[in-house]
């Protein structure tokens, strides 16, 4: 199994895994931080190198299949294609950013913290890379376990309950997924878990209808879309911010990604049949979450609900089944990850200094921390998809696709754009503008490493926002493949 150090997908999994395991044994806090940082940077560097070998000639470098459970028809198969590439990119970029932004934070039992973080990275990479249903399910769960421990061990007062609810909720959902996977597996003529077999399996319409829900529930809980979302605000609120970043930046993308790779192409008939239900739920969820975000006083909860709204749009656009929104959603997954991590970093920086997250108790930070304010405004504007920021490209395409599906859904979903502007600007106004108060009077502007991280995020926001072409090139073939399943 460890003879696998000869291609990218395997390396992208092993590197964080080994890095994480080693972290557990580094007792010194400073060293373990440095090690985790180094490990995540190595992963990023590795990924960067892999981008040089994206052409078909190097297919062998980007796919791998080891014998694992031949008796079950499952093999340890990984594939780095366009779809997984964009999410691996997100995962690879996000972790160094997270580590860097929270570098000055000191965790009790730091070795366990960083070890679990890197294990989560490993799990996430696995989810995005695996092209074998059983392996996929494995990683799906494995990403969850360290996240559960992270969310329970470090964080707010009610963290244990919140994380537990999250865990049981998602675990229950994924069990349905397991049943669905097994059923499809039994239906494949060669009794195989491979993605190809799953794509080729012949399922009758009634089978597709219920299998669709088996898969969908698991993914919907993970995303989460209305009404499966109630675990999310609590967990985001209670988890340590670094973990929240992982959860909201990357982990929720698991659901979306899985829907593209494991749901849409396998059950095309059912997707066509239930598209209105799913999109309806997603759109209702967008408006609903946006409305709730309007009245949140806790920064973390506000961002949590905002995230639900954004994810809702992505989910809706996936089910419209057209190129435009599919590609938009893929790009937006990356962008949303970057933006929301940026938002969390800002929240983290504010909470670190003031100790509070209540919007009503903050104010006037722009006077004390103009740099932070400017960077936040850029990120916040990206969050509401202003043109020339990264999110605009994705959201524009998704809305365009959604409009093609149904103008009414697009119009209704569009209302969330307005609501997003309201709550985002409210937040900016109440936290950064206005006058100082006793809590915020002693606020200091951010220090260099924090600034570097945020600037990097802002730079990414603009690069993708102005020139998204490389992203399109990355995902084009993948989305065409999925859509191709629907063209009979």
């Amino acid at each position, binding site marked *: 199994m460890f003879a696998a150090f000869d291609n990218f997908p395997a390396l992208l999994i092993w590197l964080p895994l080994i890095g994480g395991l080693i972290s557990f044994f580094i007792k010194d806090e400073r060293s373990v931080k440095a090690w985790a940082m180094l490990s995540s940077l190595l992963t990023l560097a590795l990924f960067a190198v892999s981008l040089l070998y994206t052409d078909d000639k190097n297919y062998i470098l980007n796919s791998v299949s080891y014998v694992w459970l031949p008796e079950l028809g499952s093999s340890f198969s990984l594939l780095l294609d366009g779809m997984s590439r964009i999410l691996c990119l997100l995962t690879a970029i996000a972790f160094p950013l997270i580590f860097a932004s929270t570098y000055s934070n000191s965790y009790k039992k730091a070795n366990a913290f960083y070890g679990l973080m890197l294990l989560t990275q490993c799990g996430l990479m696995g989810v995005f890379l695996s092209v074998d249903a059983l392996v996929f399910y494995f990683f799906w769960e494995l990403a969850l376990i360290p996240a559960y421990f992270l969310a329970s061990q470090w964080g707010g007062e009610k963290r244990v309950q919140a994380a537990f*609810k999250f865990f049981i909720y998602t675990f229950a959902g994924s069990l349905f997924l397991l049943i669905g996977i097994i059923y499809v597996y039994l239906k494949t003529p060669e009794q195989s878990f491979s993605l190809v077999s799953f794509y080729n399996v012949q399922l009758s319409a009634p089978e597709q209808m219920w299998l669709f829900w088996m898969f969908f529930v698991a993914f919907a809980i993970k995303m989460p879309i209305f009404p499966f979302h109630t675990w999310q605000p609590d967990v985001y609120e209670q988890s340590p911010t670094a973990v929240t970043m992982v959860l909201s930046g990357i982990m929720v993308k698991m659901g979306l990604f899985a829907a593209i790779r494991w749901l849409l192409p396998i059950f095309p008939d059912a997707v066509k049949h239930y598209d209105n239900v799913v999109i309806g739920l997603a759109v209702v969820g967008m408006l609903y979450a946006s409305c709730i975000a309007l009245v949140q006083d806790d920064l973390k909860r506000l961002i949590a609900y905002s995230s639900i709204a954004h994810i809702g749009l992505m989910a809706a656009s996936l089910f419209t089944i057209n190129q435009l929104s599919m590609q938009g959603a893929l790009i937006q997954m990356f962008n949303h990850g970057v933006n929301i991590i940026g938002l969390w970093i800002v929240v983290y920086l504010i909470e670190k200094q003031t100790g509070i997250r209540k919007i009503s108790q903050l104010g006037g930070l722009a006077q004390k921390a103009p740099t932070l304010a400017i960077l936040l405004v850029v990120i916040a504007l990206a969050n509401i998809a202003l043109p020339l920021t990264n999110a605009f490209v994705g959201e524009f395409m998704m809305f365009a696709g959604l409009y093609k599906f149904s103008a009414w859904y697009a*119009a209704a979903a569009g209302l969330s754009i307005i609501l997003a502007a309201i709550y985002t600007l409210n937040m900016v106004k109440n936290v950064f503008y206005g006058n100082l108060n006793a809590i915020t009077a002693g606020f200091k502007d951010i220090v260099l490493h924090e600034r570097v991280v945020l600037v990097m995020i802002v730079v990414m926001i603009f690069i993708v926002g102005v020139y998204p072409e490389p992203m399109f090139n990355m995902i084009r073939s993948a989305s065409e493949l999925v859509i191709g399943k629907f063209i009979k």
Partner: protein
Amino acid sequence: MTKLTYLIPLFPLIGFLVNGLGRRVLPKSFSGAFGSLTILASFILSILIFMEVRVEGFTAQQIRLFSFINTASLNIPFAFQIDQLSSLFLLIITGVGFLIHVYSTAYMKEEESDHYARYFAYLNLFVFSMLLLVLGANYVIMFIGWEGVGLCSYLLIGYWFKNGDYNNAAKKAFVMNRIGDLGFLLAVFWMIGQYGTTNFSDIFPRANDTAPAVLTGITLLLFVGATGKSAQIPLYTWLPDAMAGPTPVSALIHAATMVTAGIYMIARSNILYTLAPVTPSIVAIIGLATSILAATIAIQQNDIKKVLAYSTVSQLGLMFLGLGVGAYTGAVFHVMTHAFFKALLFLGAGSVIHAMHHEQDIRNMGGLKKHLPITHLTFLIGCIAIAGIPPFSGFFSKDEILMGAFAHSPVLYFIGTFSALLTAFYMFRLYAMTFLGTFRGTHEQEHHLHESPAAITIPLVILALLAVVAGFLGIPEVFAKDAHWLQHFLAPVFADSTARQEAHAISHSTEYALMGGTVLAILVIMFYALKKFGNYARSEEPVTGFAKLLSNKWYVDEIYEAVINKPLKGLSVFFNNVIERSAIDGIVNGTGKFIQYSSRQLRWLQSGQVGSYILIMVVATVVFFIIQIFGK
């Protein structure tokens, strides 16, 4: 030269980046000068391009920079379009923009260095966005600028961010713009659905083959966007509040350029509107209604900038009337003249405010004529121009719109004229209360009254000159044949629309009569206003009746608050407290609770008594027997 078009927005962008990133280190003198110079550079380039465009037979050119969104089904290039319309707007934006930058260097002198740089950064960013808006060769690029100017408007209104009201005004402006933007976006999506592209050059030729219903839908949605950006009913209320920003900002953004984006956009899409069956009428009616509504409100306002703001709304309404009746050239003409005289008026107001130490209430002014001679003179020119007194520019442009309206329907004409009369009234009321009579402010203010520095007065003078002469670019047919240079210049842009419109059929005599009547009425109103308010004395009596209704702006803000904001907030609270907590999370937690409850209940089966255990076993056995033997 058109190859260098990309430089035009690039210069302000560089200005933005330099000022924005270097705001801590750059001295004030540098950031102000650099900010202005970048605009000047763009202005010069714009002139050069204009020179090229004005040559007879110039056809629109697309300059493709790179591909922005590129998928199998949709290809949106990042491309610019240079034609007569955009080059005209380039001139207005960079020209007026440059003057206002210069003006600002003096006006904002008191700001701290980094805020000063921030101001110019925002201003440059605004110009950049506005240039994108007019240069865009497709609706998406236009939309980028469209949202960009909204953002800059937000940033500049909230420039003094410590003040909560200013922030709220900024937010309101942004949100209302966003409502309009949603309409715009939906129109773009519809076009993508209909045509598979957003390029002007691809869509307009196909407009003729499009179903009228589709065209109506698209144009109405676009118009929703325009109402947001150009402050028309029902989305106009943000503009008066936007006066919270620094006055040069009001001049540039909220008078001369950004708010005319809606007119630009409709003028750009003129063929769609011409072909759409219902939309033009709606545009005209909304425009007219806005015009009257805003004008009536302006009569009772006492804040110098608020009056000008409502005046702007009113004038914009007239422009939409022009668009609605097909007088595209007239509308664009009025945009241009309005840019000059309204910028002039705002800058003049700024000069007054500057002199009065941020006093904006005209009831506390009066008699400034002698203290601020240049400001007074230029302001008066502005008033005459906006009132539509010949031969100042406002007369020509307004006349063209009104004549267009008359050709369409005399009713529109008369209502429009009524609005023009109101304009004359409130403008001269404003003028009289500010400059005539005796000074009503404090002694300290009076002591400090002085004419503004050259950086302020020179732009005033230049704009005053323009306000006087700009009208001659569009001399109507009745006065001299083929003297309407602007119409001639813009003809290629509106060619298709013109071809489909019925020819104007107003006899010259009618036109003379109407013109004469209107001018006469305006003069009467003017003198009435001057007389009435020339020696305004403060009265403490509260306004009553209709006047109260007007001074409270028809209570529109309150109605919005009650009809939209309150219910939305209530709904959100309901969602948050009831649906989220009790219903959805309640179900999730309830499942857990139910299992715990069942657990507690099921425990009782485990009674600890062997007898009952065996009893259950026996009963189960009996049941199993029954199922097995008799169950089939």
